[in-house]
């Protein structure tokens, strides 16, 4: 069961890929009824994107698709056909939100631009998520995650300063955009409570990332400094450093004195007074880094992390997907949800970022098979007969 915060809100997810579906999934997890609308035949582009369950490239086994589309119903329709458009308009009449992430020129060409949609339902909130937004000189640019990340200004800060900037392979731009879009969509729904009107929410993925520049921007416009990537010099604190079974992020931040840090790592030489101040740690950076490497080599990641937390220090540890799946803390928080999918079977999926006391969420509906809910939505809700449905399918509308 999803949470009940948005019950009564109906969302049409015309998104494909990551940003739109992630936005709609967040709304679904808060309890909105989300109907995912896919193109007949091929469906959402993530159905063709790896990795796949069992490495079998089957459109029902794409892990990104399976993850991003839980708690949604799935229908197919072709909005560029007259009958498909009629179906879409029927769905629009009862919808509160439409989420789409087509390039601006394409949404206009398909009659999915805000003006056309608002004619059908003036109360509708239309959320459009694109790499650069609906306006400006880059609006029609071709962009993927890496290009969006680059042009946001954030990528310059990712990676090591002696190498090229580095991206995360899991398309982070579009997750940040989707999360922003989910928030902004709800702001528009909130505004509608007073105005009674829908509106267009124009989300630029690059600008969502650009908003993260709260430090680099004043560095430049206050003092002309260009912030870069992780320094290769320095004592190694606040950076990833090798431990016995992987990497950890030792930290001197927080309220505890140096002596606490030194005694945790447990190397006698670290107790030297010359390391006790920030200035001292900078001045003796190279020597300190060597000692730190020596001390951390005695530790495994998790025991060090827990010992740090118990001493009110804020060390981190580099975890991989397996570590997360087996994390006792995430299990105690009931973070993972059980999802049972008719094709790939049962698995534990990441749940919600927040816990909502009073709302119990332990399982999710699996992502829909392509067109799985056509009969339910078009038949039961819109009143099409089973004969009509056959005709729609024959003509490639659904």
């Amino acid at each position, binding site marked *: 069961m999803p949470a009940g915060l948005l019950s009564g809100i109906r969302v049409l997810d015309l998104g494909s890929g990551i940003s739109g579906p992630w936005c709609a999934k967040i709304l679904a997890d808060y309890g909105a009824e989300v109907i995912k609308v896919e193109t007949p035949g091929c469906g959402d582009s993530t159905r063709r994107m790896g*990795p796949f369950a069992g490495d079998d490239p089957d459109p029902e086994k794409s892990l990104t698709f399976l993850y991003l589309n839980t708690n949604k119903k799935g229908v197919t329709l072709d909005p560029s056909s007259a009958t498909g458009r009629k179906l879409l308009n029927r769905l629009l009449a009862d919808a509160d939100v439409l989420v789409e992430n087509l390039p601006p020129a394409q949404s206009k060409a398909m009659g999915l631009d805000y003006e056309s949609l608002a004619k059908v339902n003036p109360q509708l909130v239309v959320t459009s998520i694109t790499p650069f937004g609906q306006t400006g000189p880059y609006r029609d640019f*071709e962009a993927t995650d890496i290009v969006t990340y680059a042009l946001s200004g954030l990528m310059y800060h990712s990676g090591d300063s002696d190498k090229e900037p580095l991206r995360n392979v899991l398309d982070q731009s579009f997750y940040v955009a989707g999360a922003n879009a989910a928030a902004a969509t709800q702001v528009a729904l909130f505004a509608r409570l007073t105005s009674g009107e829908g509106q267009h929410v124009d989300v630029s993925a690059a600008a969502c990332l650009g908003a993260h520049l*709260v430090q680099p921007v004043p560095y430049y416009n206050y003092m002309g400094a260009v912030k870069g990537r992780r320094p290769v010099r320095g004592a190694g604190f606040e950076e990833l450093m090798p431990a016995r079974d992987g990497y950890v992020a030792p930290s001197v931040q927080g309220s505890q004195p140096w002596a606490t840090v030194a005694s945790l790592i447990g190397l006698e030489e670290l107790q030297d007074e010359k390391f006790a101040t920030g200035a001292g740690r900078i001045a003796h950076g190279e020597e300190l880094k060597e000692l730190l490497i020596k001390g951390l080599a005695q530790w495994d990641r998790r025991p060090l992390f827990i010992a740090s937390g118990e001493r009110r220090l804020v060390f981190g540890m580099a975890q991989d997907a397996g570590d997360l799946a087996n994390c006792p803390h995430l299990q105690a928080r009931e973070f993972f949800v059980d999802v049972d999918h008719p094709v790939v079977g049962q698995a534990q999926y990441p749940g919600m970022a927040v816990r909502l006391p009073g709302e119990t969420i332990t399982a999710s509906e699996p992502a829909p098979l392509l067109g799985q809910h056509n009969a339910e939505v078009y038949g039961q809700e819109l009143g099409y007969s089973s004969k009509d449905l056959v005709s729609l399918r024959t003509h490639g509308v659904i």
Partner: protein
Amino acid sequence: MPQAPLKNIRVLDLSRVFAMPFAGANLADLGAEVIKVDTCQTQFMDTTRTITGPFPDNQPGELWWEQGGTFQMLNRGKRSLTLDLRSEDSQAIIKDLVRVCDVVLENFTPRVMARFGLDYESLRAEKPDLIMVSNTGYGHSGPWSNFGAMASALEPTHGTGAFMGYMEEGPDGRMFEGQVPNKMGNSYSDFLATWTALGSLMAALLRRARTGEGQWIDLAMYQTGTTVIGTGVLDFAFNGRRSLRIGNRHPVWSPHGVYPCQGNDQWVAIAVRDQDDWLAFCHTIDAPNIASDPRFADPIDRRQNQEVLDDIIATWTSARTSYQVMESLQGAGVPAGPILTCKQALTDPQYAARGFFETVHNPAEVGLRTKGYVGRGWKFSKSEAAIKGPAPQLGEGNDYVLKELLGVDQARLKAFEEEWIIGHTPEGGGAPGTVPLEEQVVLGWIAEYDAGYLDHLPPTSEDR
């Protein structure tokens, strides 16, 4: 007339540092009245008021606690109320204030709010339909709940580093999957929490409007970071794979990566998605021979020979600026874009056309010039969203909040002043020291600095 969507919402912002203050700033942009709880006790102040900086020309001025650039971005448009949360008087004021607020934001470790008697249950007793976001590293339950956290150490903990890392070079010159995790950096985890806080509290506000119920939102940054790598978590669940560190390469597309351009530390990102992109790319870089080279015939071949291909591409990009590469390739329909430095972002035509950096006029006495502040990634066709003004000066809203909102009498106000509960200047400590910019370059804290930066800022950020 466009209206600000949250104009009737009042927010009590007890939060510090980055994530939740920025959520509060976004709420202020949307028209909410956001009251930031500040303090005169320097050692307990929000660290963005004290040590984070940056300060104008790297020189903290007489009013240094009003000048931090990051503090300004994160607290724009708020009111400031000074209190001393350790005192019972201040705790009582918070409870009185909660009765007239809709939303509380806080990010103390769980034990702290309980110690102040300001945990959700206690506050809900004052206001039954309260919506409160408690943002912590690990959440309010589970074995790690009382562990402190900061984004730079939390980012690897929540697993994003498993999907980010440079490739390593083998003895034959071939690159292979790397083992060393890396970071998005720039406090990435904080901002994930910002967006999650905004989304969840808007959902709670929508429900409150419908049913009258409040909601406590127990936001764990650790979980937030794990939700954005769901594909990776499922790849472990179904296929047993734990990580993928392939530099800037793409699992399928090729070529895909970052290439050097003219200038110091200038780069362009290029993504060739399919055969159409590939042919257009070969044509644009004026290398028709590579289009027919069997080593690069299809994406599988190109991935196998990407080292050779990357060298050819780098030769072409190195003779051009990153913007020139973008113009050529975008002209041919191939995804490409410069990796903008912040300096470049401030004057980039797309950000300029969207008005992304919003001009904020600072009062002359604070010693800050008119500045461009980062805006938001979304625009509304009908609702108003805009930065309302600079961050508040310390205790700027004391009179407004205590007298107008709560009706506190003059005698009590005087007592508060004497006990340093309310005031406009810090008690204890002094201006933080700063490291000269030349030295910061040597230490690697900044890439470079531009002494003539005032002449290179966009027009919106110039002195008026």
